């Protein structure tokens, strides 16, 4: 599993590839979390997320928006994610630590996840997600 940051002039455009849809969602969450808070380690903070949506694109936008909310509102640096997807429902466990301005220095706030440029595709044995985050 891996993610890359693609060219986008104003914002951050991510591409994520993983063998399963749930794995790709987990990697997308890791991509935005690492952008906001680098050098994170899983140290005791755990949050569980359950969501439903009308389609898979909306499920991805809602899931990543929920990570942004928890990170910002509760001051958490997240680093690992376990995701389960059944139809258009998602359950996830997110692990991390309390955000520390010194330890997690150098990150950028993400303001939101856009539907412009959001896509979910199957390519051979992989799921490929692309999305733009407003920074």
């Amino acid at each position, binding site marked *: 599993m891996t993610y890359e940051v693609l060219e986008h*002039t104003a914002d951050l455009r991510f591409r994520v590839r993983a063998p399963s849809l749930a794995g790709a969602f987990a990697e997308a969450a890791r991509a935005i979390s690492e952008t906001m808070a680098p050098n994170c380690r899983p140290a005791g903070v755990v949050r569980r997320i359950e969501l439903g949506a009308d389609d898979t694109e909306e499920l991805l936008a809602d899931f990543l928006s929920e990570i942004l909310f928890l990170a910002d509102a509760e001051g958490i640096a997240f680093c690992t994610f376990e995701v389960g997807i059944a139809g258009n429902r998602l359950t996830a466990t997110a692990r991390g630590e309390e955000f520390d301005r010194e330890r997690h220095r150098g990150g950028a706030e993400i303001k939101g996840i856009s539907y412009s440029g959001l896509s979910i595709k199957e390519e051979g044995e992989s799921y490929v997600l692309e999305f733009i985050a*407003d920074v």
Partner: protein
Amino acid sequence: MGDGVKRVSDLEWEVPVGFTPGMRVPGRFFLSEGLRRSLEPGAIQQLANVATMPGIVKNALAMPDIHWGYGFPIGGVAAFDISTGVISPGGVGFDINCGVRLLATPLAVKDLANRRELVERLYDAVPTGVGAKAPLRLSNRELEEMMVSGSRWAVEHGYGVARDIDRCEERGAMKGADPSQVSQKAKQRGFPQSGTLGSGNHFLEIQEVKEVYDQKAAAILGVERGQVTVMIHCGSRGLGHQVCTDHLRALETATKKYGITLPDRQLACAPVASPEGKAYFGGMAAAANYAWANRQVITDLTRKVLSKLYGISAESMPLVYDVCHNVAKMEVHTVDGKETQLCVHRKGATRAFGPGSPDLPAEFAETGQPVIIPGSMGTPSFLLCGTKVAMEKTFGSTCHGAGRVTSRTQAKKGMRGKDIRDQLAEQGIIVKAPSEASIAEEAPAVYKPSEEVVRVVDAVGISRLVAKLVPLGVIKG
């Protein structure tokens, strides 16, 4: 330039109906030869997409700082008839009422002998960067009052002087704000962040008025050559981001309910007069007012630092003006000779009402509305005024900034924060930021030249140059 785009005049271009299926009106944008090279095809496509939205009036417009965003292009302006048109968070963005204000001071550059200390003290006083906590402790009731009264709330709670209120667009509080349309999640993010700068391109800058192009207007606005000014650029923080996220979700459903077909889901919208449209407007206005209070609190923190260091009073540091550049507003404009009620979206664009506008304080009746265009760390910012031409061509709108040309990823690959800091120091500009990466991402070279962008709006006539401001010290988030 994309295939099918037509040149209308030296600086004006048209995206004709048919460029993308479903366009209701042509797109129109302003650009010089010098700025053409940096225009992405994605930005023109986004402008064409806006032209497909129901109830759009005259043209989908973009200012010379047009670039590829999400939903609307950045630099985008569109007006919708309030009885037949729509309202969309895609035309405002996540950072509702991201905006800029300019403070005048009685100081000259020679008075800033201890400039590094000034930058350090401002950096200590104004919370910046990811995870910064606010100086305020707000109750639920106070947060709700802040979302209704904006700048006035902050002034009444000791964060400013009465005159500040008159010097804000909308007098620092949009009417129609509805805190009940701001979710508990958004409020939770808003409590600890009022009075914080944020990160990304947000900044606080100490500047010098380097050139004055229009002496008369500059005198009315209260600036003169050689004077030290302070520019503050920030928005509605996590509260505004959450309001956008929540309502975008609700409007996605509404788009289907009202049978609206769109080329991009980020343009999710509802009729202005529908319950969903009104709900978004109420929440957006509340977030906009929170942003005005936010900039007002930062203004107060800034004045306190300057007062302590230089022994000057808050009254001697008047607000020149405060503009927002991500917002949707109900405005009356003349369309085909008739006064028409419109919902004007400006996303990365600034209101630029002309002389005599009833929405301006009496002292600006002759000059038109002050317009503040921030540069980047090493490039100048500009003070301009709104014009009659803007009222005729762009629903009283102009550009909002320089506009990026290089992605953040490229910037970090190609430039080291430390080198940029050193180069700026050689030019006499002191930069203080939480990390080297945040300096590299916002380096001067990643933006279009601010001079060229304002030259184009001045030449087209949609605003008029008044003064040029150059950076002396910057704090970044």
